[in-house]
């Protein structure tokens, strides 16, 4: 009995050590980013990297400077809208397709799914120029719709949800069929709610990839008042180049909304997992 408790304690300690070690590794670049943002350019490139408390205090004004020279509020808004609509589109289309591929039988299923798989294998840089020309001809440049365009459907999401649906027990559907539900009702009322954790994951990943998408917003929204955070940040890099503190300050400002969203989402995320875990 004692050895079991001791074993449990040892393994807990080991786990904590590993977790803390990796946390440290994850955080160091961020801490570095924030510290650099608070220095002057000269201090930032001074040789001593542990220069945490500079002689003249922390230069919070770097943030103010960046905030003034770039309209971050508009960047936040555009990014948020793009993410929101991409998530909605992705979840809608992927859950329907994922259900069909994961649970239904129909002719041509394998070929269609191959189409989904193959799309994931193709580097996205190939699509960009033709997609850009399409968006341009549709007059959607510098609009939110244009930003959402490549994300209207998602092969990745379809695959993810197919895996999710495949993992659900078979009996549920049979029971529903006996009860007289048609496929649509089965889907809506029973199957879809059960893939909540997968949907939440998909939502999160779609949001993240939308947030980080760089090349597309850059070429579709060239005006500073229509572009997103990632593209705006890259433009700032071109602008401030060697001014490290300013760059880091803008990077920090760009990160803040995502962290906020994540914190909000985290509760939803936990709920979603707990609920689906409990059902099983």
């Amino acid at each position, binding site marked *: 009995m004692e050895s079991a408790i001791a074993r449990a304690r040892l393994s807990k300690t080991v786990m904590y050590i590993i977790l803390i070690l990796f946390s440290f590794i994850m955080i160091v670049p961020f801490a570095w980013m924030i510290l650099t943002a608070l220095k*002057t*350019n*000269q201090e930032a*490139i*001074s*040789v001593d990297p542990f220069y945490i408390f500079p002689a003249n205090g922390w230069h919070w004004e770097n943030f103010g400077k960046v905030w003034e020279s770039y309209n971050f509020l508009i960047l936040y*808004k555009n990014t*948020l*809208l793009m993410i*929101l*609509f991409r998530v909605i589109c992705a979840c809608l289309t992927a859950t329907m397709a994922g259900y069909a591929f994961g649970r239904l039988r129909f002719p041509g299923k394998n070929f269609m799914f191959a189409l989904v798989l193959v799309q994931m294998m193709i580097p996205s840089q190939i699509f960009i*120029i033709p997609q*850009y*020309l399409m968006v*341009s*001809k549709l007059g959607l*440049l*510098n*609009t*939110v*719709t244009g930003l959402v365009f490549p994300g209207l459907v998602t092969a990745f999401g379809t695959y993810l949800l197919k895996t999710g649906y495949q993992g659900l027990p078979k009996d549920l559907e049979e029971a529903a069929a006996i009860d007289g539900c048609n496929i649509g009702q089965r889907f809506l009322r029973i199957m879809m709610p059960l893939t909540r954790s997968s949907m939440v994951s998909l939502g999160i990943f779609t949001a993240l990839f939308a947030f980080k998408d760089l090349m597309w917003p*850059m*070429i579709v929204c*060239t*005006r*500073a008042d*229509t572009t997103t955070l990632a593209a705006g940040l*890259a*433009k700032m*890099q*071109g*602008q*401030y*180049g*060697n001014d490290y503190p300013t760059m880091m300050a803008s990077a920090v400002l760009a990160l803040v909304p995502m962290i906020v969203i994540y914190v909000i989402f985290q*509760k*939803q995320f936990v*709920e979603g997992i707990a609920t689906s875990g409990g059902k099983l």
Partner: protein
Amino acid sequence: MKRILAIVLALMMVMGLTGLTAASAADFTINVNIWDSNQQAGLQAIADDWTAITGVPVKIEVIDWNSYWTLLAAGAQGGKMPDVFWTHSNTVQMYMDNDLLLKLNDYIEKDGVDMSLYYEDIVALYTRADGNIYALPKDHDTIALLYNKAIFDKYGVAYPTDDWTWEDMYEAAKKIQEAGAADGVYGMAMNTSNNQDGWYNLVYDYGGQVITDDHKGTTIGSDNGKAGMEMVRKLLTVGAPQSVVAETGTDSLFQSDKVGMITQGSWMINSFYKAEHHDDYAWACLPYADVNGNGQCDDGERWSCYNGLGWAAAFNTEHPDECASLIEYFCSVDAQKKQAELGVTMAGIKGISDEFANAFPGMDVSAFTKAESFKLYFRPYTRNTVAWEDPIQQAGGFLDAWQNPEDPALMATACENAQRIIEEAIAEE
């Protein structure tokens, strides 16, 4: 929680929709794209003067060098180009040949723009073979030597003078490098990518040409070219290693007080003027090559590269008249003077040197205006410059020689490789 989400969602949709409609209700603005953030403030001030006269607002956007050309090309191919933008010798021929720029001849004639005011080479660059003019000269720039007085003082080396040869520079850099080794200070710094502001000038000083005058060949692999690059090699032995410079950049190294001297162009003055230690920085004339060994600078022994950007408009802009007017304004005598006074760049119009020289109180930048009395060569260009300009800076080109500056044979081979690369690229055009 769900209800809150629903409300937030609804709000977002409303925001999104209003955002979409608001854009179309505004009056039109002229969109201007440039790639140099240092110039944005000054140019916006000049543009605002134009807006005060015409009532049309102007929005200047800075896009970094690489993205600038990608975006412009994408826009040219079927998207939307900005209304007004900068043209550069690297690519302007391609744009002109494909009729992507607004023809300015009629406007020039109607408004009586005096083309003789501008530097001839720049005008020639932006005039097509059939006489159509597609851009007005915006500016020109020259190259000078930047040095850190504090470092020279610390190691007891005499400051650069305007009579320096490259050998003098070598000697000074050598002293600094040896004395400063313990502190991690280098004599000078130059990367393969410092072409216009760096090693190109040595090639010309020694009698070679990166691109011949007809833009169809090169003599970089000739004995003259090799002599020039050999001098570069010597300088590199008393400079920062290439990997350091590739990672950190010559400007950053200089501004962190790690380098005694670098060569730079007039478009970068602002960056050093505003730096923290700008009191330590000073400019001297670009050194020359005493090829005939007579101890003085003869004709052809001192060259400076110069480049001239142009202001152009998209061929399919919706407001050609306004764009042409804006371009003419930017290139008018008054605006050019203002551009120089604000320290933005040196003018495309001849004879406005003094205003620029005085634009930086506390920092003597006359080295750049003195450079105008040197022999000047236009920044080497061909129809598709990037096709050879990048490869000669990389492995298989001069990068190999930069990695081992102690070995003269490598540099000579690199010259021959560069010759071949350039000739092949031109053949493909």
